[in-house]
């Protein structure tokens, strides 16, 4: 097998395969019929499946994402494209109080199988309202699964898994990793050989991209690739970095994290989301709760600081958790 795909293509392949076979899957979102969504999650689907199954909506996120939840309760499996996670503010009640809680509040009587595809992240000067990650903001809600593939193989397998799940799944893609041409050349480590047949990648397992013995660096989405760059750099200095992709926030593979840190004894947590009250703290708590004795040094976080994301290039570049900052953190732990 030698076919290499971008994440966007790999994800589309999974959705297409499921749509071909399952009439209950219906696509919704702004500009999905003609354009396949801003980030091309449904590229070509309008022509293939028609306007009944690929529904371009008004700019009414509260309405159509709420309707997706309703349709899910009534036996459909809606797949909703919400281009930028920054827009969840408009429809947050559906996420927070409806799609996530209905199964529980009904004592398991009512299922809400729906998949929400959302783009995250910055790094391309789109400023404070179009660059956020906010994955912790959704992962904090009980009752929603949150997954975050960082390469094409996982993109396809995890979307198959999401589409076959009976729950509300938020499927995140960092915009810079998707391999959408106009965002810039695809990051090589996001590209992967992808089988043509369908396959699933289970939720709740970390992926060790690169084994190492000195320091564990965890990441998700784009920060995985920054960590990989840092690891390659550090290897030249004789530092062996293990890069662990969390890739599923809910459920989170806490044992997988522990296993790596128990081995290396040093932990750098990278996250493009805001520093406080987020995934980075959760990862460290996971280890601390199991055995703080494994830490040879206190863990370090390399994240977006607690500031709105600035527009100007030198400002944004200074606050992103880029490879240079990650490598510096690792060096500090090793000194």
């Amino acid at each position, binding site marked *: 097998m030698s076919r290499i795909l971008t994440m966007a293509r790999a994800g589309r392949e999974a959705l297409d395969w499921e749509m071909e076979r399952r009439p209950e899957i219906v696509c919704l979102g702004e500009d999905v019929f*003609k354009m396949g969504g801003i980030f091309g999650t449904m590229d070509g689907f309008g022509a293939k499946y028609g306007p009944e199954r690929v529904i371009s909506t008004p*700019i009414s996120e509260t309405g159509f994402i709420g309707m997706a939840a309703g349709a899910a309760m009534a036996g459909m499996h809606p797949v909703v494209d919400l281009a930028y996670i920054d827009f969840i503010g408009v429809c947050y009640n559906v996420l927070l109080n409806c799609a996530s809680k209905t199964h529980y509040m009904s004592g398991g009587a009512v299922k809400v199988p729906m998949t929400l595809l959302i783009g995250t992240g910055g790094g391309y000067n*789109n400023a404070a309202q179009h660059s956020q990650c906010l994955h912790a903001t959704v992962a904090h809600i009980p009752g929603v699964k949150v997954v975050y593939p960082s390469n094409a193989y996982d993109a396809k397998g995890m979307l198959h898994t999401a589409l076959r799940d009976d729950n509300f799944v938020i499927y995140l893609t960092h915009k810079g990793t998707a391999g959408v041409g106009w965002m810039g*050349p695809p990051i090589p480590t996001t590209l992967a050989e992808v089988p043509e047949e369908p396959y699933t990648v289970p939720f709740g397992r970390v992926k060790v991209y690169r084994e190492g013995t000195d320091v564990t660096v965890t990441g998700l989405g784009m920060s995985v690739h920054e960590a990989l760059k840092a690891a390659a750099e550090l290897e030249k200095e004789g530092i062996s970095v293990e890069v662990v992709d969390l890739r599923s926030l809910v459920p989170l593979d806490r044992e997988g994290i522990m296993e790596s840190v128990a081995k290396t004894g040093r932990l750098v947590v990278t996250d493009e989301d805001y520093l406080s009250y987020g995934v980075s703290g959760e990862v460290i708590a996971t280890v601390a709760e199991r055995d703080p004795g494994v830490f040879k040094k206190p863990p370090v976080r390399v994240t977006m600081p607690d500031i*709105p994301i600035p*527009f100007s290039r*030198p400002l944004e570049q*200074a606050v992103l958790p880029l490879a240079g900052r990650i490598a510096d953190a690792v060096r500090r732990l090793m000194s």
Partner: protein
Amino acid sequence: MPLTPELRRGFWRTMCLSRAFDDAMIALYWEGKLPIFQFGAGPLPGELHCSNGAEPVGAGVCAALGPEDMITADHRPHHVAVARGVDLDRMAAELLGRRTGLSQGKGGHMHIYDPAVNFASSGIIAEGMAVAAGMALARRLQKRPGIAVAFIGEGAANQGAFHEVCNMVGLWKLPVVVVVQDNEWAVSTGKRESTAVERNSDRASAYAMAGEWVGTNDPDDIFLAAERAVARARAGEGGTILELRTARLAGHFMGDQQAYIPAQMKQVDPLPLYREKLIRDGVLSAEEADAIAAEAKARIARAVEFAKASPWPEPAEAMAHVFAGEPA
């Protein structure tokens, strides 16, 4: 205010200035992004939504406002900002992410704030609806003069915020003018494909607001309608939904090929039309009209020069301004 020749020359000047600003930004946008496009490259990275075609809206509505009035605009703010008198040098510098920008490079093109002229904008669709209504409420509570104008697109009129806020404006008779700029498209989605009624001004009756519609994209007509809406607001008669047919000549954002627009829906550039009209009406000679346009270009060229010559912010400045009351 009658539609004097002076006022109309002013419309022309404002429209030329706005067009020159956008044309200059478009040129800067493509710098460094060709031959191989990359979103974050060049002197003006990120998204850029230009106002080419919507200049009459900014010119006509802003001429009906006083300095005490407040404005919220959306992701396509340049034409309103220029017409409102937002500092051109500092706006250009903001788009280029420079330290001399209106927000010292923190905001960028969708987030233009100039409190000196009561101007604010946001990249989240329909966010400005409630903000404008809140500004109007504040002035009422403070017993100070001033109405608020929310500039939104026709696509934004389908957000929940639009309907919630219109209801409160109607309920409390708030001095708010909602300017719905109908350029037919919200990204690739046509108005007919997204909106249950033909005119958003018809929705006014559901909220005890006045509704007006102008279909010409001509600043004279827009000004007169805006004046009526502003007068109602000032007189305590409440809000207006003022829907204005306009145009989006440079696509949704830079790089939009607009393959979804059928040939028969091609939009008309309002600038040559208005120029002809002014000449026909004897308000301006062709030479005078062109001199104004050339002056506008020269003014914008100076703004661009100012921006380009400005320093970048220091990386550490990223941490400043999260909260008020802290040293910057």
